[in-house]
């Protein structure tokens, strides 16, 4: 059984997949043992890889070992890709946050399509976010809200994006995948870097406005 799990984990990681506590509890439990992680890392090390955890400690993924310039350029390529996708991710997470049970989006959280639809229909700000996201995804921005939602969900479910996985087609229930944890880490890293830049540069030359402080009585835009 453990050999089986070993193969499953390795196959998943080598495919660029994520192992999340909620989505893959058995595989995640296997990785809770430090000896098993060593075993996996020993294996991945032959390919110049290692298993890493996201900041929330809830998701594992395969990462390049920091060895040479090739890997550095690969990392830079990932950064460029992340820049390209950043607007989509932020828009998508802002949308989903409106329909989750959790206080904040996290891998493993369930997303009910009808709840999302209800939230979007009730909130103009979210409608605007949805429209912008659809424009960026080159989807039809002038379609109905429902159509736009469907296209966004389909985009997120697509294997190359892999932010959502379908749990129950009849009830329209989806689950946020482990990639969401990775995306959130990415967003936090970008934000941290921006904050550092903003604090080091003079305020007048900062180039972007001061982050909003979100007063408690501020009405929703």
């Amino acid at each position, binding site marked *: 059984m453990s050999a089986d799990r070993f193969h499953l984990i390795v196959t998943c990681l080598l*495919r660029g997949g994520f192992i999340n506590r909620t989505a893959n509890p058995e595989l995640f439990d296997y990785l809770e043992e430090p000896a098993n992680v060593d075993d996996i890392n020993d294996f991945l090390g032959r390919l110049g890889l290692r298993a890493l955890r996201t900041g929330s400690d809830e998701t594992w993924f395969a*990462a390049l070992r920091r060895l040479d310039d090739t890997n550095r350029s690969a990392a830079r390529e*990932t950064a460029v890709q992340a820049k390209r996708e950043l607007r989509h991710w932020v828009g998508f997470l802002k949308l989903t946050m409106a329909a989750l049970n959790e*206080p904040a989006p996290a891998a493993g959280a369930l997303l009910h399509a009808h709840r999302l639809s209800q939230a979007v229909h009730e909130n103009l700000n979210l409608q605007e976010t949805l429209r912008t996201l659809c424009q960026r995804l080159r989807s039809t921005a002038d379609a109905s809200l429902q159509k736009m939602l469907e296209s966004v969900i389909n985009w997120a479910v697509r294997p190359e994006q892999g932010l959502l996985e379908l749990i129950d087609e009849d009830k329209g229930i989806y689950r946020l995948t482990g990639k969401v944890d990775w995306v959130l880490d990415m967003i*936090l890293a970008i934000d941290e870097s921006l904050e550092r830049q903003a604090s080091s540069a003079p305020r007048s030359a900062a180039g*972007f406005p001061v982050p909003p402080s979100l007063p408690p009585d501020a009405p929703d835009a």
Partner: protein
Amino acid sequence: MREHILNVIQALHQNRDLIADAYCQGQGIAPEKETETAFTRLLKVKALTPYIEGSFRLDRRLRVFFDRAVNRVKIYGNSTHYAHVVGKLEAMTDAYQSALIAADIQSQEECIDEIIGLCDEFATGMKEDIEHFRMVVDTRKGFSGGGLKDRLLHNRNYVEQAAQMVEAVGLLDQADLLDAIRGFTELTNVLLRHLYNRVEGSDDLRRRLFEVQQALNAALFDLQAAHHLVEVLLRLDDRLARQADFEPPVWENDDDLPDMLFRFPGFPLPNYPDPNGDDSDVLLSLLMEIRDDRRPSARPVAPRAGSLDDAGAPPPVKPSASEFRRALNLLLTEVDHRTAVISVMTWLRTQHDRETLYPYSPVIWLGTLSCAIDNGLKPPDGWRYQHQVAASDLRWETPVLTDIWLEPDVA
């Protein structure tokens, strides 16, 4: 007035089932179509109070009344005012002091019972609060209109509430409670004995408080992380919305690159296990091939310190400039005392000052000297260097330096 009271009692009596349900269900009860009138009436007589998500709960004082009536250990419900309890505790201490002065044993016993009850109430209220807090956080239904900022504010309120509770729990150690009583040694002893008898069984006050604190801290930690995440998301969204040409940062320094950027994007692999019942032989053999091609698992182990095999750290390959200078000075001193030819190799081998030459072998010293000579090291006045080289046939073999002689320079 009497009629009014009778009306209230009648309202309670007519809706006794509802009241019993409300008392038994800590999560509150929600009105249905047929019970809407009853709910309105009970709300009017203040028997029910609004709770979360459109549900209602029995009024706190009524719950306390029922608790006492059925001798329930749990006395107070949600939102016990901790400061209020401490105030009552102090008042009760004063009462105990008076009873002590008056030597009224009956009153003393009553005061002690009351004080213990207050301690228990403190802990119970706290535990219920955290349960309520967690229930609200866990079961809060999804976003219902409003706005994201509302949600953020909602979270912030809970964070603040939780922070206050954690702070309150910090005061809640048994010892702190006793300190709050500002009691005398005798009173403290009596209370300790009573508390000990009381908590010895199933209901350990201290353990409960500890659990409460742990649960609160965990919930607070999660909530703060979530709160921070939502703030960052909204901040970034705001930036993206305001600046069309917004450029995310570039990490100039490679060392600053976050781990996330090193994610391996993956390559296509056959399915495992194969959905068609195939044993996925190709994949397994591929994986095994990589797995078998590993380093030997037995790694060389360093000898135990002090053991016979422990030779210490390996020496550097050649002496440093200062070490060479010291050794050369020794050699020159020897030259001063002699007039005959000196073989450096023989001198190295017979040199008693091992400390200076340690840990390099004579061959290494010879090689170093040869290099120095090649680099322009001059012999002492009146002497010259003579290299001795071994090679059976210089045409085919590389000559090997075997010795350097210091000879008096006759010329």
